[in-house]
């Protein structure tokens, strides 16, 4: 079994880890993956997959216009709102423009 590349995974999962945490989680991940490898024992060639769990047809709501949240409500939980916007760090540097 190959070792999990935790640096690559943490980048994919968008989680920054310090060195100590990285070491601990690396050990845990190897243990967990060794454990879940047990599913390789099962013969699965003839089984159709599961696409959804609902026993019946999915129900959809009527396609009619509903009252949306106000801008104030939408922005009520962001830490640093500006007028009518969420704010994020600058994506394009001035040098790039």
């Amino acid at each position: 079994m190959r070792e999990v590349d935790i640096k690559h995974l943490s980048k994919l999962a968008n989680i920054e880890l310090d060195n100590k945490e990285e070491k601990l989680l690396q050990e845990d991940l190897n243990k967990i993956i060794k454990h879940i490898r047990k599913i390789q024992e099962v013969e699965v060639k003839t089984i159709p997959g599961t696409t959804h769990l609902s026993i019946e047809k999915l129900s959809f709501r009527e396609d009619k216009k509903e009252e949306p949240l106000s801008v104030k409500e939408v922005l009520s939980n962001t830490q640093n709102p500006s007028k009518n916007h969420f704010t994020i760090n600058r994506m394009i540097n001035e040098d790039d423009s």
Partner: protein
Amino acid sequence: MKTILEYQEEFKEQGTTPLNLLENCLKNIDPSLNAYITVTKDLAKKGLEKNVEGKVKGIPIAIKDNINIKGVPTTCASNVLKGFIPTFSATVIERIEKNGGIFIGKTNLDEFGMGSSTERSYYGPTKNPFDLTKVPGGSSGGSAAAVACGSAIISLGSDTGGSVRQPASYCGLVGLKPTYGRVSRYGLVAFGSSLDQIGIIGRNAEDVGILLEVIAGCDPKDSTSSSKEVDDYSNLNTIPKDIKIGIPEEYFKQIDPQVHSLVMKIRKALEGEGISLKSVSLPTTNYTIPTYQVISYAEASSNLARYDGVRYGLREEGEDFHDTIRKSRDEGFLSEVKRRILVGTFVLSSEAIAEYYERADLIRRLITQEFNEVLKEVDCLLTPATPTPAFPIGERTDDPIRMHVPDRLTAGANLAGIPAVVAPAGMIGKLPIGYQLIGKPFDEKRLLSIVRLVEKIAPFKGFLKEVKDG
């Protein structure tokens, strides 16, 4: 211990008022248990002032803190949701409000529902009311402890792999995970969307049936909710005749002998009522935990990608956009959630998806088929709810594999989307332990009827004596 109907009779006869009951429940809140993240006393009082008639009129209900109540913080026991106040209520909350129920508080959980002990909470561990050195189970440990100590008459939890049933077993209560789709998930914070189901923890089958009648039913806001008619789940006095119950032998392996013998006592009591019980086999039980881990971790890694610190929750400023997201998530999540996100990301990655996620998806079908086949022969299954009674706080926190051990008996019902209920089988020392019934899709009424029958023929005497009961 009074039932919801008995309280409502008293309200009519002016014996106890709903305000008296609420005040008693508030007095029973024991800070040393740490069952609540937020106590919503004012909201409960405002609810009483509205004087809404309905099936749960005046009943104080505790809500797991991953179900939204508009205007009350939802934390999911995570720092990542710091300061988050939902702008809408879950459908289950609206339905309870329309039926006169009141909310006493938001209960503690393992962060985002990921755990079996309620120790992995940003707000500290919840303790078992029967023994403060033991865990209450999890992840709905706060909801179970709240009911067991008499601070709520009934509560809502969520069950992804056993998170309602395992704490019910450890706290001497009835815990129901309904069929997938029976109860709307709108407003429940997602962990594993194909496994999650809102469940109920109460003191008896009838109370659980009453609350299920209130919250069940189709919801246009959750396309996976079922349009199947809602049964009269609280009418549990007639047991359908000619019931057959299966005993799956795999569920009795590697369990505490005392748990085994208590479940066998339930078996004998049922046989004494003329119910036939027979051995059945579910050979894929050995693969329940790894299959559950792969699917739930994969879904968690996808569902939790939304916590980026931009629109809501904790934000730690970084050097650039991606750095801000990474820092916010690092600061926001505890290590178990990070572990599951990382493993979930691995099993969904292009190099591993066929070997892990797709394979687990196929095994899930196999597990479901096995349940369906066995449930053609029998009406439901009787099993232990957990392999042991509640374990000591701190015993399993460093062992990500051992923490999943109790899930072996409960996660199968989530993988197959079928209903299951846990109810008290008796006491081992001073700790309660439960039995479990697993049933056919939408057969909640039958399961609750059998629990009701057991309550009559083998009543549980382990309720905490020191709880002042309204």
